[in-house]
């Protein structure tokens, strides 16, 4: 893979996606570059343009503007070559429901032009990896949600891709299934597969991503490592205090200047600060007795809500 050293794995400039005939702009001129071996995340609320971006990277959706290079190749003209070298795990499982678990892997490998013997050997290995060996002969419809997801990931690996694209890989799964999936993704990452994923789960982004960008309304609104983003947009700690209903506004007034930023919510007040305990002492000094008070470290969720707002998008 020395040929890719230094050159970005994926590089977008002014990337745009406009859907016709509605004219809806899903991706509105974004720039990003991914280094080899990196786990890169697109974060954002529903409708932010994450999936559209992913579909363009996987060369199944034509660009409406800008440029996109994947593995050094132009996505607009060399789609088939790019698709041969990447793996895709779409948001909705698109497994072949008419085939068994093992057949899904076999035929998918064949679509990449791999010889039958190679595909058979890989299918067995991937079933093991996805912990589905016992289910090899079952129809896909008999699998649970978590199993289907693992099979979809296994399928995306059948061509031994250099990049694996995962669109909301754990949405809709129970905690056990999510953790098993994360563990498998770590394993892939340690084997040198670059990961690109979208998510709106902050814990997932913090667990998996080396670097991420936050998207909103088709644009990138911030980017960096999880730590950088938290420091730049949320600060170190958050003090959450609960006050009796109706006293929200008055309390907020009294607390002005106590923290770097203060955000009133319907049921709580959030104070973003470098030192939560000192801020809490300040709250008491100003004569406010909260019902409950909690000091916690700032997380990506705070970044996310700060940048993309609290209004429901859908």
């Amino acid at each position: 893979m020395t040929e890719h050293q230094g050159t970005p794995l994926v590089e977008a400039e002014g990337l745009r996606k406009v859907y016709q005939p509605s004219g809806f702009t899903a991706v509105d001129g974004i720039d990003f570059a991914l280094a080899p071996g990196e786990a890169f995340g697109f974060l954002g609320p529903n409708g932010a343009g994450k999936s559209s971006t992913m579909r363009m990277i996987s060369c199944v959706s034509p660009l409406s503007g800008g440029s996109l290079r994947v593995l050094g190749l132009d996505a607009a003209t060399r789609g088939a070559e790019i698709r041969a070298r990447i793996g895709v795990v779409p948001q909705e499982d698109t497994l072949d429901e008419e085939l068994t678990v093992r057949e899904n892997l076999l035929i998918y490998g064949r679509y990449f032009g791999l010889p039958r013997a190679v595909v058979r050997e890989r299918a067995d290995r991937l079933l093991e990896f996805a912990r589905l060996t016992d289910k090899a002969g079952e129809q896909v419809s008999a699998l649970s949600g978590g199993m289907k997801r693992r099979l979809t990931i296994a399928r995306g690996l059948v061509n031994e891709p250099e990049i694996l694209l995962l669109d909301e890989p754990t949405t809709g799964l129970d905690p056990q299934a999510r953790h098993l999936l994360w563990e498998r993704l770590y394993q892939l990452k340690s084997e040198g597969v670059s990961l690109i994923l979208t998510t709106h789960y902050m814990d997932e982004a913090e667990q998996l991503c080396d670097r991420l960008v936050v998207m909103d309304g088709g644009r990138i609104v911030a980017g960096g490592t999880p730590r950088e983003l938290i420091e730049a947009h949320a600060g170190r700690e958050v003090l959450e205090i609960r006050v009796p209903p109706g006293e929200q506004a008055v309390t907020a007034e009294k607390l002005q200047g106590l923290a770097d930023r203060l955000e009133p919510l319907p049921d709580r007040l959030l104070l973003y600060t470098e030192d939560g305990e000192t801020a809490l002492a300040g709250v008491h000094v100003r004569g406010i007795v909260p019902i409950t008070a909690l000091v916690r470290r700032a997380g990506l969720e705070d970044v996310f809500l700060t940048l993309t707002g609290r209004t429901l998008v859908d």
Partner: protein
Amino acid sequence: MPALLLLERNLLIYRHTWYLLLAEVLEPMLYQLTIGVGIGQLVGHVPGLDGSGPGGGSTGGIGYSAYVAPALLATAAMNGAMNETTFNMFAKLKLQRVYDSILATPMTVHDVAVGEVCWALLRGVLVTAGFLAVVGAFGLVQSAWILLVIPGAAVVGFAFASVGLAVVTFLRGWADFQFIQLAMLPMFLFATTFYPLGVYPRPVQIAVECLPLYQSIQLIRLPALGEPGPALLVPVVYLLLMGALGLRIALPRMQRMLLH
């Protein structure tokens, strides 16, 4: 040829569900029994291939069953192919989203379209071959030329599979399949399936001659009744052009549907 990988997929599925093809052979068998044999008892013989021509009756007439059988063979090839690219493909396009995952590999929309058409025409050929065996068992084979039915069915299958592919890109929901029935059933009844062209007045004859099923029946019936010849070129060219046109309409529409 990557398109053939789609054939491989479908064969993998039909390893589990091969009996569905038997069910499709059953339909022409029922027509053969009820109309071919049943009504054949009343009709006796029909006057050769085209009773309207000046040489009408010169072939000495054929048993009604043997007259109907080639038409049912052509219809089987048509239905086998077109059901595949309409019904089955609609489900794959809209419900199972099979192609979304296929197109994430180096396969292209062109590969998918060509692959599905190949599979559909193969299915048409298989159903026709199955029914041909039945026809043989009934003792209705008039000539060894009947073996031309197999390549003939491939041509018929290609034409209707491609048109089916174009049609499926226009369907909005299952209700729209009524429109296909609305075209297919009258065509089946009028395209000289059960009686010769000669029974119609000339203007109706011209209209019937334009029907793709009429051309398909000609392609199968002429050799089946032992009269192959240059006349077969007309249906062959007609059906190949029809198939090419179907693909030409279908491809850009599928491209837009699948790669949005």
